């Protein structure tokens, strides 16, 4: 019933507003949008619109709102939590055609972007002026700014520079009712009223679609120094991290890899990290040359005190790239040593890292499931890669069990279920472990303010939707969550 409506009446209505060229209805073409970076979850979207402008998005959303049909926004589809997983009974609105950099205003340190602009393109646009865009998710060559806004993306350097939310100053959004609204301060520092931009960034596409994004550009640092230190084990490396931070040094990034992750990276990209290392640390410092040089010496000293048996400094960009190569390839590299793996994204207080790593090792030993650890040690964001072979009876279940236990471990230490990948569909069921029913109910008040009909990326973030009460003066469509049964997704 719903499907016939989508391919029939709704498709006609959408064709009228965006034209044939922007509408995808062919089943095999629709299939290419069935998943994002969390590729084991797949749903073929009912319809896909390849939007060219905020006007297109506004028209499509208004059409969906009138028909009570759910919609999902998608940028480049690199998300790792299924935030852009389509709806079979809904419309997928793709922003990747909207790639114009609308303005680069160096005097005011701002750039205005269409949502499909890639993260790296923003830094490239600032580069001729000596400026860059700080958040740098590993997928930065392809991931879109619109997606970054939805997910509040971080990156290795967010230890010092913060996340997307710290760098977005204004948005034009299309609300789930189909209105175009400008929010935030844009070129200015502050604007009167609630910080709607702060609430919108990281809302995982559930409050509307960003159609124009104003970001802050930063002056590129004068000096960047990168150091690689090899330790006997993760305990020693973790100790070095703690003493670097305790000494008051604020590196741009501190990354750690354990022995299994190192061997995977070695197999994949021949990163040539020191032989026999049970753990490596990558520490990057940036800023004025006068401050970076002494800080680097200090970092080196802390590493040696904690037993680093080999320390390498990158002398130039090429050597720096070589140091980072192993770290950046780590996720893909474990594919070399294991047919399947689960990526976790839990966060723990930095000081508990050694304890948590020991407990992960124990879980791994007890279950016989290997876990490779690659993580942002500076801010306690773990990325344990839980390895398994789906072809072996029962192994997937055991891997999922280990993975779930790791998340519980993070929460038991006062941490978070996700540091940067987002909740999406992947971790919605874990939200009640981190937040009380009241907390989740309160968050959904915001949802109800933006999307009372519950048609904007439904089924993401929250395990159960809150039914929004009648809001005076606002018409409510049919509640599609009633019909569609979001619960089946979990």
């Amino acid at each position: 019933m719903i499907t016939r409506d989508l391919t029939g009446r709704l498709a006609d209505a959408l064709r009228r507003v965006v034209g044939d060229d922007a509408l995808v209805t062919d089943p095999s073409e629709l299939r290419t949008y069935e998943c994002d970076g969390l590729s084991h979850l797949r749903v073929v979207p009912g319809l896909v619109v390849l939007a060219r402008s905020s006007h297109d998005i506004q028209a499509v959303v208004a059409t969906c709102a009138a028909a009570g049909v759910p919609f999902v926004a998608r940028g480049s589809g690199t998300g790792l939590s299924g935030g852009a997983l389509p709806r079979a009974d809904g419309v997928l609105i793709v922003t990747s055609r909207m790639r114009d950099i609308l303005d680069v205003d160096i005097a005011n340190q701002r750039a205005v972007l269409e949502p499909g602009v890639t993260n790296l393109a923003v830094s490239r646009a600032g580069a001729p002026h000596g400026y860059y865009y700080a958040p740098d998710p590993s997928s930065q060559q392809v991931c879109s700014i619109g997606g970054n806004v939805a997910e509040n993306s971080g990156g290795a350097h967010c230890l010092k520079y913060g996340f997307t939310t710290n760098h977005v100053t204004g948005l034009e959004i299309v609300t789930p009712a189909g209105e175009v609204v400008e929010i935030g301060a844009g070129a200015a520092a502050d604007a009167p009223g609630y910080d709607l931009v702060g609430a919108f960034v990281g809302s995982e596409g559930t409050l509307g679609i960003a159609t124009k994004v104003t970001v802050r550009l930063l002056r590129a640092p004068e000096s960047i120094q990168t150091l690689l230190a090899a330790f006997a084990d993760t305990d020693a490396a973790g100790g070095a991290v703690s003493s670097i931070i305790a000494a008051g040094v604020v590196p741009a990034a501190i990354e750690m890899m354990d022995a299994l992750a190192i061997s995977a990276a070695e197999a994949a990209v021949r990163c040539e990290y020191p032989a026999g290392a049970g753990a490596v640390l990558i520490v990057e410092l940036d800023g004025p040359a006068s401050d970076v040089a002494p800080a680097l010496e200090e970092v080196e000293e802390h590493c040696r005190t904690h037993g680093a048996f080999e320390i390498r400094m990158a002398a130039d960009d090429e050597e720096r790239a070589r140091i980072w190569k192993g770290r950046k390839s780590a996720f893909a590299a474990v594919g070399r040593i294991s047919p399947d793996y689960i990526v976790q994204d839990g966060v723990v207080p930095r000081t508990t890292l050694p304890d948590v790593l020991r407990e992960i090792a124990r879980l791994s030993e007890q279950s016989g499931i290997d876990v490779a650890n690659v993580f942002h040690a500076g801010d306690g964001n773990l990325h344990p890669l839980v390895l398994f072979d789906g072809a072996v009876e029962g192994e997937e279940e055991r891997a999922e069990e280990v993975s779930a236990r790791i998340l519980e471990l993070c929460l038991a230490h006062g941490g978070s279920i996700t540091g940067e990948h987002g909740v999406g569909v992947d971790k919605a069921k874990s939200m009640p472990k981190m937040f009380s029913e009241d907390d989740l109910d309160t968050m959904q008040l915001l949802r109800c303010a933006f999307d009372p009909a519950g048609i904007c990326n439904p089924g993401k973030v929250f395990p159960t939707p809150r039914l929004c009460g009648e809001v005076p003066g606002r018409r409510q469509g049919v509640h599609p969550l009633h019909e569609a049964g979001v619960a089946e997704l979990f």
Partner: protein
Amino acid sequence: MSVLFELERACTTGHARPATAADAVDGVLASHVAAPVGSDEVAAVVRVAAAHRLSLLARGSGTKLDWGNPPTSVDLVVDLSGMRGVLEHATGDLVARVEAGTPLAALQEALSGAGQRLPVDELVPGSTIGGLVATGLSGPCRMLHGAVRDLITGLTFVRADGVVARSGSKVVKNVAGYDLARLLTGSYGTLGIITEVIFRLRPLATHRRYVAATFDDERQLTAPLQAMLGSQVAPSALEVGRAQPAGPVTLVALVEGREAGVTVRAAGAARLLGGTVSETDTPPAGWATLPGTTTLKVSAGVGATPAVLAAVRELGAEHGCSPSVRGSAGVGVLYVGLGPEVAPGALAGLVVGLRGRLGALGGNAVVLRCPAEVKASLDVWGPVKGLELMRRVKAQFDPDRRLAPGRFVGGI
């Protein structure tokens, strides 16, 4: 059962009493004062208020109650000054969990023992954490360390219906759930009563140097300002000051860090500022304070400071008043101050004129504080983008409009 009795019963550790004239909020008399201790007691008090449909307003040390519009009514003042304490200070994680009634100065004192600080300046002496967050008030160090909202990792608040809600966590990196802390920051108590805040901290700088240069007028400021913004000096703050609308303009860069780096960077700043430069280890007079008894907050692009100074000078002359300017040229937030003698007409003319000029620059002007009698005829907040969405948010969080009613933008 009387309201007062119920409020007393809700405050098991704290207390409740009838309000006095001293409890008036921006000229609006209150009926009751409850001073709960802890989130649960605040929630119990708020439930009493909900049951009796009382309007309510949170108060810390009461330093900014006259900011924004006067509330349309205040049946109950929720006094959080008894809730002071650093509940948790994880020194190795550079994180602290703090009760809302804690004075900022007391927090800084507690953190300094571990060589740490919350990199937020005390613009209004005596401010509590709750008031700081509710007004989103940041000072000079925002340039390097971010605004208050950028430093919060978690927040606990009590909803209008008395439910305790938390968002965020005590880890510095977390994207689980909506960021309600940002929504509450700068909401002037209209969405909930903030009871606890978790902050990320920074190490205390061992050395600091203030490098100051003075220019004859704002036109001479453009080049050194752009030079500083585009430099590798990495100042923690870049402050501008002008005591008289047509007088000289002072630009001060604060350089912080380890001794060797500070020496080199301060010399760099001096070179870029040019002219006669002075260097000190202590802040110059007026540093991190708000000018005037009537104070406007002007936000514009970080490059627009000379244009804002010119607008203030010209509009001051046009309306026969003598505004001073102080603020963060490194951020794009300037404060315009006027004395108690300013005529209401002149103030209104200045504000309207500034909004006209700033509109073209993408900026805005908000009247933070001014005599209560002037507010009746002056829109203190000015035009607000996204106001309709804000009303919908308010309608969800406080459907009966009992939290600081009328104080915020658009009569929220």
